[in-house]
């Protein structure tokens, strides 16, 4: 057991710090946070910089523009990124879900076509899994794909699809055989979002922002070779996607939580217009300390997961633990920030604290226990697959 960087890891960390110092926009550390989504053009430009430096795909093979380093280095990158409060790569779905799935299941042709532009941020991906009638229950998906000559003809509706409004491609779970048992009738397509018949409609969220979308598919003709895996293997391919979603998520979420805890510390240490400094209130201090302990617990649980991954090659159950705990801790953190601001935290618009940053974060956090596996589903997974309780259904 040793938490210190090896000489190689320390060198990588130093190189990263120098790179962030040289590449973040001037005055980045001193900027005032703002509410709302990152500007996509800014995200694309930043993603291209990350790609040029090799940091977009630290663990990816060199052939696709990665650095082929062990996952420990990805952890270091995310820690340093959080400490610099650096922007993220635009390819959230691509890097975390589409890319690893294409690497695991794709043909050489598919890998060559999709992976490099995904890593560079030139092409953005979205996810077409959830449907109005199939949320947590993916096996209930009803979007149809029927083979007609050399094309799959897709009809149906997907929902809760982040980035769909700017996406170039979609990882799409479709039903290709309605006659067999639920899981076995599914297939997995890589769909060009510019094809005729694809209609993206933004959904306004609780925050007021249209962060996610509905996607309607009407007679969309997808080339036959755009399938990942064989017809009927869609469930297995989708499980690869979800394993990666939860496997690599812990570090990224913890990094975001660390950055947000820093903002919380700034907020409680500021003196309010009424002269009160929340950091002097022992009840506030206790809640901040509990959140700091949550952060440390998440951080070191990720480290244990990473060590297990490096040693055994298999992600352990820690990913579900980290996601579940992070989501609830993030809700507590953002609520505490709003609590200490008092009525001022409810003000929107130009008069709001940091442009409404905390109001936005607090409302957005309610989605944390729903997206990427609801807390109920994650508790089922932990109870059944980790603790070994009998299946609930």
């Amino acid at each position, binding site marked *: *057991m040793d938490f210190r960087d090896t000489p190689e890891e320390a060198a990588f960390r130093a190189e990263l710090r120098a790179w962030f110092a040289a590449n973040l926009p001037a005055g980045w550390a001193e900027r005032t946070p703002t509410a709302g989504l990152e500007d996509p053009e800014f995200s694309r430009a930043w993603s291209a910089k990350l790609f040029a430096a090799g940091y977009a795909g630290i663990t990816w093979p060199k052939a696709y523009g990665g650095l082929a380093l062990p996952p420990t280095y990805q952890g270091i990158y995310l820690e340093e990124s959080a400490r610099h409060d650096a922007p993220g790569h635009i390819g959230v779905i691509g890097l975390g879900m589409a890319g690893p799935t294409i690497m695991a299941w794709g043909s050489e042709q598919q890998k060559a076509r999709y992976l490099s532009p995904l890593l560079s941020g030139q092409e953005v991906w979205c996810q077409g899994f959830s449907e109005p009638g199939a949320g947590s229950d993916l096996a209930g998906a009803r979007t149809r794909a029927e083979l007609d000559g050399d094309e799959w003809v897709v009809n149906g509706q997907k929902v809760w699809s982040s980035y769909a409004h700017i996406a170039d491609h979609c990882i799409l779970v479709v039903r290709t055989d309605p006659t067999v048992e639920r899981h076995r009738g599914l297939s997995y397509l890589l769909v060009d979002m510019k094809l005729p018949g694809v209609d993206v409609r933004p959904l306004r969220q609780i925050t007021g922002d249209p962060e996610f979308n509905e996607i309607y598919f009407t007679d969309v003709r997808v080339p036959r070779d755009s399938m990942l895996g064989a017809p009927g293997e869609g469930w297995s391919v989708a499980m690869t996607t979800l394993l990666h979603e939860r496997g690599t998520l812990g570090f990224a979420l913890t990094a975001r939580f660390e950055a947000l805890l820093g903002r919380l510390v700034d907020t409680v240490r500021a003196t309010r217009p009424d002269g009160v400094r929340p950091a002097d209130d022992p009840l506030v201090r*206790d809640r*901040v*300390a509990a959140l700091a302990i949550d952060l440390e*617990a998440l951080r070191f*649980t990720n480290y244990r997961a990473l060590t297990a991954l490096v040693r055994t090659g298999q992600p352990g159950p820690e990913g579900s633990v980290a996601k579940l705990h992070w989501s609830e801790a993030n809700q507590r953190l953002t609520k505490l920030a709003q609590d200490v601001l008092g009525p001022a935290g409810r003000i929107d618009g130009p008069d709001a604290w940091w442009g409404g940053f905390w109001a936005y974060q607090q409302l957005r956090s309610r989605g944390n226990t729903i997206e990427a596996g609801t807390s109920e589903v994650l508790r089922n997974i932990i109870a059944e697959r*980790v*603790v070994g309780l009998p*299946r609930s259904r």
Partner: protein
Amino acid sequence: MDFAFSADQEELRAAARRLLADRLPDERIHSAADAPDETFVDPTLWAELVGLGWVGLSTPDGGGTFLDEAVLIEEAGYALLPAPLLSSVVCLPALAGLADATARTALAWAEPRGPRTFAAAHAVTSTATVDGEAWLVQGSKCDVADLGCAERAVVLAMTPGGPALFRVPVEPGAARLQPTTDGTRRIGVLSLANVPADLLADAEASPALMTAMRRRAEAAIALESVGVAQRMLETAAEHAKQREQFGRLIGTYQAVSHHVADMYVRTELARSLAYRAAWCVATSESEPDAVTTQEVDVACAAAKAAATEAAVFAAEGAIQVLGGIGMTWEHVAHRFYKRALANEVFAGSPAEHRATVATALLGATR
């Protein structure tokens, strides 16, 4: 970065798990907890632990570090070991260089009308005076954990130069055990009426040793609590896999299984914090420049707060999942629950430890 115990440490864990499971079946935990003070100590089991080299592992002769002791302490919690392993491990920094580091030792710093937490230990009212060549200690110590089986105690007493550490024998008349809910760890009051004492460290050297012992105590209680939490999680899970109601195993009901899942989550998060604290303590002892004072203190405080609460959470969860049987004297769950409750308030409450974390993050209050 490498966050796993070594293969040797995992072997030590497996050996401890096997031995303690064999020596401490549920009946033995019950009989130890209910034993009168005079027969509470099991010298055979202690001799066995000493014989295996598991006491004094981090002394130069022991050849190990606090990380090896961490593995044993977690297993002692899992087995609810009614022996003073924890106190003996905590006292080791003060006993460095002494031949008999394997004697059963208790740490006595708290006082009925003096300090109750480590943070206040400097305000000690017991005194030590020189009588010719020898030191004599007088005063009263309370909350002395493991006093019920200690042969000697490490005590903090005021000297003309400031608080200093002494070793005193625990004479039968001087120790008054107090009945407590947690019968598996006997605590009590130690009355010292001009007792001849060995000076372990003078006023100049003692504060650093007190810090080392405080850190060990916080990390060790966190580790023991992880063991307690793990045992309670398993107890609840095993019951939920076997017990049927309304024609189904109760583990299939999500009201039950989600409760168990939460026990697992809290235990794993506490485990990460406790192991991290153990590494910080071990590293602060072997390579003091490799970790900062604040890093070690915050890691220990965070682990103590979170792990003791996790153990209480897991034990309360187990009692709930067990249902009526969990409320009986006959079931072993209440023994673990009482240890969990005792650990939560011993050597600083969770709120006091969170205050330490808050000060590191926010600075002092104005």
